[in-house]
């Protein structure tokens, strides 16, 4: 889409001007979008161009053109053209079907409804009818139809919240605020009278930049920045309604400008296949050259040509001419139907993925979706898995799970909750209550005057007061809106325990503590920042005392505890326990302030907020000066809930020798927590943490670690590497990169935190190039798009977050756990299927067409064909077209259950040993041997042309038809031999193909002269089918060919059993366990696969301080930082006791 923009840009270099309420002057692009590849008119030229840019198709086109030269073609003029057309038509139909779907999807989007101001009244129109300059009204929960500038909103200070996860993958809501000049314009009348213009920059793809100026009549120009802009694809949240002026529409919206077409990915198998086609092409050239030399030799033997051939006027037998003849003669070595067969096969494989009920998420009725079918077999070869965290491993739902108050931990119902978890594990993201904090002991202690009662009260009060959450009351229900999910979880948790946060007013909050209403005056909000790792709030309690409540990381709180603080040790132990379970912990503490202290501080504070330079720093120093001598209350533990079956899936993938890297934009602490909870990290695993501020430091720490590892470097160790985005930037520098990768690839688990989307893509790219293994990236947000596009296979989680990741992915699934089935079952199966299908296609073509070479030896290298010309071209299209399909669609190495039960089986496809150039050569040699047998046995059988009972003599085509029949039988049986799973379709394909040929043979031999084709076939069928030699050969020739294959296969299956054979035997015998289970199977597999190096316990002695051997503490907290308006301003702008003004407004609009 870039070119559209640049064209536009060239026309109007000054940017665009949008005139308010003057629709005729705003002529810009339409808001309807089209993602389709073709239109009605562009289809044919574009389609043909795409098809013939494929080498194989171009090759066949070239052959077709060659065949038009008179006297060159041994096979007639149209025998390549017709199959080529058939194939083009088939893939054309597929293209049309796919494009039709895109057209329908576009139509769906384009015909969504929205409300705009037209002729001074609100009108409901379709998205595609929205124009630049329109004033759009959007209500809560709606997606915005175009990029627009916010005029006003229902919220105080004309703010609104938008979910931008569709665009950038960030989960916290973004605040947008209208210009104060327009904030009051809310009625139709005001809006209709609006006149003036907006000048703004040309459309571009930067989400976070916008430069414009608003010229309202009779007012000075006002600049508009990104804080006023609402983008298409974002969703309005927590805001009753907003009004906005459309500035960019359709393809010019930032969303569409970013929606680049995912790059065309080609699978490894496809690349190998192309190599193999090249090999075959070389073989073709070699054969042609050999034949040309043969022709020269033959001519030489006779000096001149024998008299019976007849002299011709011009010299036929120039070398170049012969070469063309032979290239046409042998060109079918390159399987013409391979590409279209693969396309259809992969399309159906993709449908199987789409249809799979095991990957159907019933919670939102989402099925898995293969958005491309190119990479089906690549799924079976994944070695490195790069996973996003938020929304991928986790649900992005926070729940207050446990706490430790005054040295007593609550909510630790591990045994019980585990049972519950199993039962509900199918869809935990959608269940709320069962998972939340639930420990009656806490309330009992509180009610029964337990010695710690006061602490409990203080603890819960803190949770209710110390936050920036806004309550929203609807009837008796209170819902909380927070830009920090942690705070929301805590407030909700407190509510469940009887401490309900009910009202927020600009200067106070009101809570109901066990039914008792308490109002706290909020004096100051000491904001959170990731530097400070804590937030505090200074309140005046209902009793009139000054108190500072603080919650934050254990490290910062513990530093600031007063000596009088109790339960310090116990709480620390609890923190470690929480952290080991992967819970996010916060310490909470408070301090009572004296009036004097506070007054003094306030002076400082007021000074600090007026500082212009380095205000953040000054403020933080100022906050720091009062946050001291804390008294510890306890700790909270929040569960960042994992998606269903994540730990199990990860364990299983690890068993399948897939290395898992977590790449997250989130904080280091959070990432570590999640790694623990999904069993990527275990308690004893040493963690190498790389955090450095400079290139030198990075280099130094990396080489230090490499040295410590010594000989273990390059092997898989039971280590975890944790690195943050800044350090990674240095680590990926050219001179450090190699060292870093060596270190990273020696660790079992790698966590990369605080990565920008670009870095995610970069690291995938680096690993992809370094290890030459197949990589898979999985993510759900827009920030994962880069890595999804970079990795060999990109998987998008189609969850609650936007569709951007999904739309750029190759496969979309609803849950991380479906990856297990996608890789271990579909991936492995598809790999087997596709590779077998390809090898078989090569095999069958080589078998048939090498026979022409054997025949050339006895016909003086003249280029004569031994088969009827149409039979040659129909070979691939009809007679042997079905077995590749059944191999490609129905082949199964073993059952789904076994593949899931023994993830080790994945290594067979992962290593790719069953498909490479060597395998192709073996297959080719096998095919050449078969073709040798298939030509010479029948040739010897018919040596004296006297095989008919009535003494008639036979001709060359009689032999040709014998051979052709035996080829079809052999090739079909060979497919049967390759097939590990015979279902009804397989039977039909194998026996059916033979029957189809025999039927065709009989019919085709009796067409001439009624139908003017194949005069030379006349009578062949009736003679051959009653000839005893035909049937005697029918049995022996294919058996001679295949006897070696059968023998070889049975010997290998007997002597050299792999895990796969064990499993297959187990399946067919119906026994549920391997005869030599667990230990033995491991042994077998070690012996056979040679690749597995099971992680051994790490015995390295680290001599540097970057390695953390201790237990983690689990601090994590997320909160918006540096927003348009500060957290303090935000909380102070709410008064939840008042009704919002929009109520009247919105009801008015409905009339």
């Amino acid at each position, binding site marked *: 889409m870039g070119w559209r923009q640049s064209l536009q840009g060239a026309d109007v270099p000054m940017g665009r001007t949008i005139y308010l309420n003057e629709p005729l002057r705003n002529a810009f692009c339409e808001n309807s979008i089209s993602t389709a590849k073709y239109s009605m008119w562009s289809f044919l030229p574009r389609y043909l161009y795409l098809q013939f840019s494929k080498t194989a198709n171009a090759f066949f086109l070239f052959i077709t053109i060659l065949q038009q030269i008179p*006297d060159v073609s*041994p096979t007639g003029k149209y025998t390549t053209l017709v199959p080529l057309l058939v194939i083009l038509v088939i893939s054309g139909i597929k293209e049309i079907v796919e494009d039709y779907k895109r057209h329908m999807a576009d139509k769906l*989007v384009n015909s969504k409804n929205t409300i705009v101001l037209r002729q001074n009244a609100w009108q409901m129109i379709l998205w595609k009818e929205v124009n630049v300059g329109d004033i759009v009204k959007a209500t809560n929960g709606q997606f915005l139809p175009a990029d627009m500038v916010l005029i006003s909103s229902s919220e105080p200070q004309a703010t609104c919240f938008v979910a931008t996860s*569709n665009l950038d993958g960030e989960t916290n809501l973004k605040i947008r605020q209208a210009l104060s000049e327009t904030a009051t314009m809310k009625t139709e009348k005001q809006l209709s009278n609006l006149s003036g213009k907006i000048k703004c920059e040309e459309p571009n793809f930067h989400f976070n930049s916008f430069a414009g100026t608003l010229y309202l009549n009779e007012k000075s120009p006002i600049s508009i920045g990104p804080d006023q802009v609402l983008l298409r694809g974002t969703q309005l949240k927590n805001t009753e309604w907003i009004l906005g002026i459309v500035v960019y529409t359709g393809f010019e919206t930032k969303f569409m400008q970013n929606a680049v077409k995912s790059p065309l990915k080609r699978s490894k198998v496809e690349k190998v296949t192309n190599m193999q086609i090249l090999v075959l092409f070389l073989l073709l050239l070699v054969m042609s050259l050999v034949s040309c030399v043969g022709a020269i030799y033959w001519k030489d033997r006779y000096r001149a040509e*024998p*008299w*019976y*051939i*007849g002299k011709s006027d011009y010299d*036929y037998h120039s070398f170049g001419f012969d070469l063309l003849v032979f290239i046409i003669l042998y060109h079918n070595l390159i399987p013409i139907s391979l590409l279209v067969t693969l396309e259809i096969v992969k399309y159906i494989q993709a449908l*199987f993925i*789409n*249809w799979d*009920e095991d990957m159907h998420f019933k919670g*939102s009725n*989402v099925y898995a*979706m293969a958005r491309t079918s190119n990479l089906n077999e690549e799924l079976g070869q994944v070695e490195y898995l790069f996973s996003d965290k938020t929304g991928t491993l986790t649900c992005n739902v926070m729940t207050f799970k446990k706490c430790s108050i005054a040295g007593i931990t609550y909510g630790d119902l591990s045994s019980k909750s585990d049972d519950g978890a199993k039962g509900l594990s199918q869809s935990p993201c959608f269940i709320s209550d069962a998972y939340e904090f639930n420990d009656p002991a806490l309330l009992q202690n509180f009610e029964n005057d337990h010695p710690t009662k006061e602490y409990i009260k203080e603890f819960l009060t803190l949770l209710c007061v110390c936050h920036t959450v806004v309550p929203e009351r609807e009837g008796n229900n209170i819902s909380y809106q927070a830009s920090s999910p942690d705070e929301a979880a805590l407030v909700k948790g407190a509510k469940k325990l009887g401490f309900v946060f009910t009202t927020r007013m600009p200067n106070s909050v009101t809570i109901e503590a066990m039914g008792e209403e308490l109002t706290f005056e909020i004096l100051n909000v000491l904001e959170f920042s990731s530097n400070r790792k804590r937030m505090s709030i200074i309140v005046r309690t209902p009793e009139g005392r000054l108190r500072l409540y603080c919650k934050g990381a254990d490290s910062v709180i513990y530093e600031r505890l007063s000596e009088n603080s109790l339960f310090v040790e116990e709480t620390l132990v609890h923190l470690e326990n929480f952290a080991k379970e992967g819970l996010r912990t916060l310490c909470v503490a408070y301090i009572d302030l004296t009036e004097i202290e506070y007054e003094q501080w306030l002076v400082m504070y007021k000074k600090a907020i007026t500082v212009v330079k380095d205000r953040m720093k000054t403020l933080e120093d100022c906050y720091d000066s009062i946050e001291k001598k804390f008294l510890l209350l306890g700790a909270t533990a929040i569960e960042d809930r994992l998606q269903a079956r994540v730990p199990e899936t990860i364990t299983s993938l690890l068993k399948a020798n897939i290395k898992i890297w977590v790449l997250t934009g989130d904080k280091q602490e959070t990432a570590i927590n999640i790694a623990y909870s999904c069993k990527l990290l275990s308690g004893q695993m040493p963690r190498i943490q790389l955090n450095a501020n400079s290139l030198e430091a990075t280099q130094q720490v990396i080489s230090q670690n490499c040295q410590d590892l010594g000989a273990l470097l390059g092997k898989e160790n039971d280590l975890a590497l944790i690195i943050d985005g800044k350090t990674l930037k240095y680590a990926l520098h050219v001179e450090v990169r190699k060292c870093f990768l060596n270190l990273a690839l020696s660790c079992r688990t790698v966590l990369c935190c605080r990565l920008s989307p670009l870095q995610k893509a970069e690291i995938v790219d680096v690993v992809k190039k370094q290890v030459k293994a197949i990589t898979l990236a999985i993510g759900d947000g827009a920030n994962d798009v880069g890595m999804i596009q970079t990795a060999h296979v990109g998987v998008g989680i*189609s969850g609650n977050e*936007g*569709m951007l990741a*999904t739309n750029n992915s190759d496969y979309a699934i*609803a849950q991380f756990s479906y990856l297990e089935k996608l890789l271990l079952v579909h991936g492995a199966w598809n790999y087997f299927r596709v590779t077998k299908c390809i090898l078989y296609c090569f095999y069958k073509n080589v078998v048939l067409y090498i026979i022409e070479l054997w025949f050339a030896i*006895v016909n*003086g290298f*003249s280029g004569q064909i031994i088969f009827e010309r149409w039979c040659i071209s129909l070979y691939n299209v009809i007679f042997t077209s079905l077995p590749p399909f059944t191999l490609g669609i129905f082949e199964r190495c*073993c059952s*789904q259950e076994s593949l899931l039960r023994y993830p080790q089986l994945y290594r067979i496809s992962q290593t790719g040993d069953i498909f490479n150039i060597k395998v192709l050569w073996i297959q080719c040699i096998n095919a050449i041997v078969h073709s040798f047998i298939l030509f010479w046995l029948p040739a010897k059988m018919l*040596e*004296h042309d*006297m095989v008919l009972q*009535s*003494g*008639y*003599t*036979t001709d*060359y085509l009689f*032999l040709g038809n014998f051979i052709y029949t035996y080829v079809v039988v052999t090739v079909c049986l060979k497919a049967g*031999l390759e097939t*590990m799973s*015979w*279902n*009804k379709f*397989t039977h039909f394909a194998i026996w059916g193909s033979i029957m189809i040929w025999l039927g065709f043979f009989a019919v085709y031999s009796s067409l*001439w*002269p009624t139908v003017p084709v194949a*005069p030379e076939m006349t*009578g062949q069928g009736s003679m051959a089918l009653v000839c005893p*030699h035909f049937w*005697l050969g029918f049995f*022996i020739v294919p*058996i001679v060919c295949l*006897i070696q294959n*059968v*023998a070889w296969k*049975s*010997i290998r*299956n*007997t002597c050299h059993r792999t895990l796969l054979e064990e499993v297959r035997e187990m399946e067919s015998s119906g026994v549920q366990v391997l005869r*030599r289970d667990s*230990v033995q199977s491991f042994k077998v597999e070690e012996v056979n696969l040679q690749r597995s190096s099971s992680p051994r316990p790490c015995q390295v002695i680290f001599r540097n301080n970057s390695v953390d051997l201790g237990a983690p503490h689990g601090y994590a907290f997320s909160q918006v930082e540096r927003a348009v308006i500060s957290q303090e301003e935000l909380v102070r702008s709410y008064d939840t006791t008042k009704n919002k003004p929009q109520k009247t407004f919105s009801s008015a609009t409905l009339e």
Partner: protein
Amino acid sequence: MTWSATARGAHQPDNTAFTQQRLPAWHPLLSASITLPLFFCAGLAFIGLGLGLYYSSNGIKELAYDYTGDSGTGNCSVCAMAGQGRAPPPPCSCAWYFSLPELFQGPVYLYYELTNFYQNNRRYGVSRDDSQLSGLPSSLRHPVNECAPYQYSAAGLPIAPCGAIANSLFNDSFSLWHQRQPNGPYVEVPLDRTGIAWWTDYHVKFRNPPLVNGSLALAFQGTAPPPNWHRPVYELSPDPNNTGFINQDFVVWMRTAALPTFRKLYARIRQGNYSAGLPRGAYRVNITYNYPVRAFNGHKSLIFSSISWMGGKNPFLGIAYLLVGSLCILVGFVMLVVYIRYQDQNDDEEDDE
């Protein structure tokens, strides 16, 4: 942005064994224990069949004589010498004498065999017009280009039948004489020259052009015979059902052979006293020696052969069956060894555990 996965839910097909890839299937697992009996059974069956075929083929009698006329190989060498380097070779005849000590079991077929003759050469093989041969008048006048250089005669007339195959029609002829008593007279053995072509060739593929005024000659008016022919196509035989394009010698010749050594059926001997075969006695074959084969180092032979259910004598198939049968048995033994060794190994492993 909304071609979402959720929208697809409605289009899901039924949840069947096919869509869930759970179709019942047979999972063969080839191993020595399974293929072992198969190899033995197949081997025995093949050997049995092979023996049958071998003896069946051996029961077929064949009598061949190379009459190319290499110097010192009989009286055809005179003709061969005479024809050397001359085109067209002069008419010449020679004879082959042989005697049968016992009855040559019938029905007896007479074949000629050419060697080193590449009927399967591409340029030779395509040099024909099947439309012309199927009697299409338009093709008669306008032979296809593939026939060149035997498409039009020097005078510009279309050649009928056109092409190199027709031009090189085998034109030696044979007659068989039987001497019943020693020194008795030779009696001509009737050779049946009809019924030597495939039924479809004679009735479907080859048709004379429509007669003009009841005359075949007029139908071919305005065409020239191939340059090597001495007479026009409609005079190939006096028998109206065996002349023109449907002359059976011609039809047989037009079916081009697969290999450079090939046989063509010349006649069947099935009339009169000879329906049971050739009785014992002395025989003479009179050969009209026309066809030049020495130019391309070829040979020509005459073959008398009887025909069984499997055609002519060719022990190859029987031998092939015997060999394959033995091979199966051999592989069977290899399987047996593998099977036994594997069993031992397996037991050892189980003992280890």
